[in-house]
């Protein structure tokens, strides 16, 4: 099972692209600025989001901009 931001995401099939994953779990336009993704502690460049797939068991972090000093 893919784990997104620490939560198991049973609804996401193995092999899903990063772009589709972002769209489904975050409700975010994958082109949107202010979003970034790491899979198993490796950052996936924005340009590779449509071509990179997520394997079963992968731990995905999807982050976005928040206020901060």
């Amino acid at each position: 099972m893919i784990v997104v931001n620490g939560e198991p995401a049973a609804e996401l099939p193995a092999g899903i692209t990063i772009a589709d994953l972002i769209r489904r779990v975050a409700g975010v336009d994958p082109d949107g600025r202010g979003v970034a993704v790491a899979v198993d502690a490796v950052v996936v460049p924005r340009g590779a989001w449509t071509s990179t797939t997520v394997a079963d068991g992968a731990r995905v972090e999807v982050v976005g901009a928040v206020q901060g000093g």
Partner: protein
Amino acid sequence: MDHQLDQTTDPLQIADRVLGSRLVLGTGGFPRMETLADAVRASGTSMVTVALRRIDPETRGSLVDTLDACGVDVLPNTAGCFTARDAVLTAQLAREAFETDWIKLEVIGDERTLLPDAPELLLAAEQLVADGFTVLPYTTDDPVLSRRLEDVGCAAVMPLGSPIGSGQGILNPYNIALIVERAGVPVVLDAGVGTASDAALAMELGCDAVLCASAISRAHDPVAMARAIRAGVEGGRLAHRAGRIPRRTYAQPSTQHDGRAEFGA
């Protein structure tokens, strides 16, 4: 006013970027997005910090859109990182998220004081510089550490005046002055500013800029405080360039003694 002391002829350059304002605004702590936008404009800043957290679909978008509308550069930070590894990964995420290789590097060593972890900070700075980042490290007020950070290629150093959000101002002006004296890169006073006079003091000590978040965002009237701290930064900068008089133990009259009227006994 002497044109050479005009703010518009005194821009700040960090790395290859010229900044129109010497106040960097932290966006943390503003209660409402509208207040943040008003404070950004009132502060006159040209660069603001942002952080990255696990995405919340509910709130996503508004911050980036708001800052874009204000026309300011975004300086992402690595707030909340306790290791060089986490800070490097967060910086890499920020580079993707904001399409900038500038990073405000924070590596914290202690939750209660939020003071920097010097060895991890230096390690992360070295790795990020090697990875092509323009690194602006939040550091202690230790002059030696500041020089080490400069030596590994940081584009500026950002010593604290006092702990983050404490509002205690500059606890060790002597150290800040030492850092300024030896620095070959811009010095940005980061953390601890509580009010306008703290920002003015930082600039009078020779800092090139001030980074301020809580003092503005948590003020009773954040927009008015943004204006006040802007004025403090500008006043302090002008005073630094103008050259203050030396401190004396005793008075020195500003009016000449000769020629005063004599009224007899």
